[in-house]
């Protein structure tokens, strides 16, 4: 007989729903009386950010009446799947969850995230402009920024030296294209891309495009990838890079092969988020000393930047322990002790104070997972470049209210442009068409 994953999931959901109605009865009574009777309030937190472990210890020491149950239920979309299931089942959802910036609109519109605008007055100056804009939807605040991923140009200096290019002087996309040809001549690819939706979105943001817009009530969506001039600008630039064979389209990102290519120089650079140093130090360890960081090359050479990844902690609106939940996210992402705990563990900060501190800016080593300090960037004070990148992130870029779905579908339509002869513009147009029909089917008004 046939039991697809879907059916099994459904059965599970049905089962959970039955159990949950019982659990809910028991839970509500105890939690309200918790603080009075000296009983501990237990908070369920879903997150994959490793540095939160240290934060939980310090938070529990300071707040003996709250116990944190920190669970890693999966990274990004896997966590959202679990979260969606729990929300649909009406129980089992955590009190606090790690939500990436691109997923905030989706959960804010669905009213699954608690509006914390009243509690966060005056927080604006505390966070970098890009991250603070990212946790808001329709003028309301739905989470506190945890980390940030302003984009930067990470490059293997050995390869660029061999090619005779000073990578730190690459300011525009044209210069990047010229450099790519020289790098190709010495047998390397300047970078790799085999169809990464997050990268595409970030590059359109970097170029100054605004292809997606959603009305404040979340009911009207505008999709204009094919008409947005800046989006087209990037699509055509990337098409040129692909057609001329200047980027590696055959190595899947984040695969074993990909990290090996970082160490042997066959992929010479990356345009990616500021969270990359720890990944390089751990997964491409033998590349240590060869790599450097520079600001992003931009369309016209003017300094600007975009976020690539980065996440926040939000309170799930079904919680019955909102006060304790807020206490925790405030400690983790706003309190100086909580923030410094995470930054020391290698997280890239979302607050301007840390980014301006000399301890952060002067760092020349990266901590790997064994706790060793590695001079991965040859002694360069790489955080200076990354902090500058965070400062120059442009605000105003909007994610789709169904960004999680949209990104999942990107590869279906653009894959052939990377592995075959299909045009990237056609792939993008087909992707947009699919998103439009999805949006309509989900009840949005589409323009």
């Amino acid at each position, binding site marked *: *007989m*046939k039991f*697809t*994953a*879907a*059916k099994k*999931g*459904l*059965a599970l959901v*049905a089962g959970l729903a039955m159990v949950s109605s019982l659990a809910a009865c028991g839970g509500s009574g105890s939690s309200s009386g918790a603080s009075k009777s000296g009983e501990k309030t237990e908070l369920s937190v879903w997150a994959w950010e490793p540095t939160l472990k240290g934060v939980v210890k310090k938070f529990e020491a300071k707040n003996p009446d709250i116990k944190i149950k920190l669970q890693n239920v999966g990274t990004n*979309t896997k966590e959202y*799947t679990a979260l*969606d299931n729990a929300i*649909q089942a009406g129980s089992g959802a955590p009190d606090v969850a790690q939500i990436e910036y691109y997923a905030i609109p*989706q959960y804010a*519109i*669905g009213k699954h995230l608690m509006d914390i605008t009243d509690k966060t007055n005056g927080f604006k100056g505390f966070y970098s402009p890009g991250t603070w804009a990212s946790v808001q939807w329709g003028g309301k605040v739905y989470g506190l920024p945890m980390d940030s991923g302003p984009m930067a140009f990470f490059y293997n200096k050995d390869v660029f030296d061999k090619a005779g290019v000073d990578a730190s002087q690459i300011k525009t996309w044209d210069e990047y294209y010229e450099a790519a040809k020289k790098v190709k001549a010495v047998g390397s690819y300047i970078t790799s891309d*085999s*169809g990464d939706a997050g990268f595409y979105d970030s590059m359109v943001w970097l170029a100054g495009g605004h292809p997606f817009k959603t009305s404040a009530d*979340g*009911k009207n969506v505008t999709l204009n990838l094919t008409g947005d001039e800046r989006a087209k600008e990037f699509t055509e630039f990337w098409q040129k890079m692909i057609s001329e064979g200047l980027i590696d*389209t*055959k*190595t*899947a990102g*984040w*695969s*074993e*092969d990909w990290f*090996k*290519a970082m160490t042997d120089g066959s992929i010479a650079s990356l345009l990616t988020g500021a969270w990359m140093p720890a990944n390089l130090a751990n997964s491409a360890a033998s590349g240590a000393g060869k790599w450097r960081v520079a600001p992003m090359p931009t369309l016209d050479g003017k300094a600007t930047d975009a976020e690539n990844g980065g996440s926040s902690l939000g309170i799930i609106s079904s919680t019955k322990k909102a006060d304790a939940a807020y206490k925790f996210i405030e400690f983790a992402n706003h309190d100086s002790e909580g923030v410094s705990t995470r930054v020391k563990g290698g997280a890239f900060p979302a607050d301007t104070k840390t980014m301006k501190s000399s301890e952060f800016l002067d760092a020349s080593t990266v901590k790997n997972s064994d706790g060793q300090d590695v001079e991965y960037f040859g002694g360069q004070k790489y955080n200076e470049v990354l902090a500058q990148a965070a400062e120059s992130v442009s605000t105003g870029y909007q994610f789709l*209210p*169904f960004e*999680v*779905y949209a990104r*999942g*579908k*990107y*590869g*279906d339509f*653009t*894959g*052939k442009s*990377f*592995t*075959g002869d299909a045009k990237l513009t056609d792939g993008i147009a087909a992707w947009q068409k699919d998103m439009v029909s*999805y949006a309509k*089917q*989900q*009840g*949005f008004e589409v323009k």
Partner: protein
Amino acid sequence: MVSGDTQAAGVVDPPRAVVRRHRVDWRGWKFMWPFALVFVFVFVIPIMYAVWISFFQQRMIGGTVFSGFANYSRLFRDGQFWSSVRRVALFTVVQVPIMLALAALMALALDSMKLHGTKFFRISTFLPYAVPAVVSTLIWGFVYGSKYGLVGSLNSWLGVHVDVLQPSVLLASIGNINTWEFTGYNMLIFYSSLSTIPHSLYEAAAIDGASEWQIVKRIKMPELKGSLAITVIFSIIGSFQLFNEPSILQNMVPGNAITTYYTPNMYAYNLSFSGNQSNYAAALAIVMAAMTMAIAYAVQLNSMKEQMK
């Protein structure tokens, strides 16, 4: 005692017995309830629930609404769904015959009693079946890597550029993994049916002067036919449910060559989990279940007819 009476009465007086037989007798059913309870909870209710939710649509704006057969009519016009069905159909038509032919050959070789080390051979060909599909796909993924995998090493040794993970040959590469996994399992089914043939038949054939090939053709092959129906049905169901191998390879293959709708199962999975369309996925699951059952039933009917001949 009572049943004895009924029986006796039936023999003595047929008309009255007919009347009595109509009286509902619940005694037998009492023995059924442990099974019936489990059957209803793990089988009937989940399927009914899936059918029920397939009549609704859940929207981000507007919530859940009853939509009748809208999910089904959308499914029949869904090009991505049909492309996934075509892909697994092609996979079935090519991979299943190759695998079963290999399995039958191996079973015949083992059964010929002319080989040394048959025990080792039997266990080692069956072993891949015992390896979890996730693990074996990962192993094959590393083997297939054209840069640093075994294929990559062969490439640099021979000075060629073979890439078995490129989109045009990817399905064949997945077929290879599946063949590796399941040939031993099918071989065991064939082998066990061969070993039911009494040895006296072979002796009689030898006395009549039959050659080894004639024994295979006249005695062994007809015996294999019966188990062939079972293995074909299992294999068709298995290929239509293709999920583990492509979804694991997805992260190892560049260029999104494995789409979110590569196989029907993957499509259902992605619809419900990344697209928040579990109602549509339920409709898909039901249609696929009906399709698979219909094909399996057709194969069974066909083989029953064959055996009647």
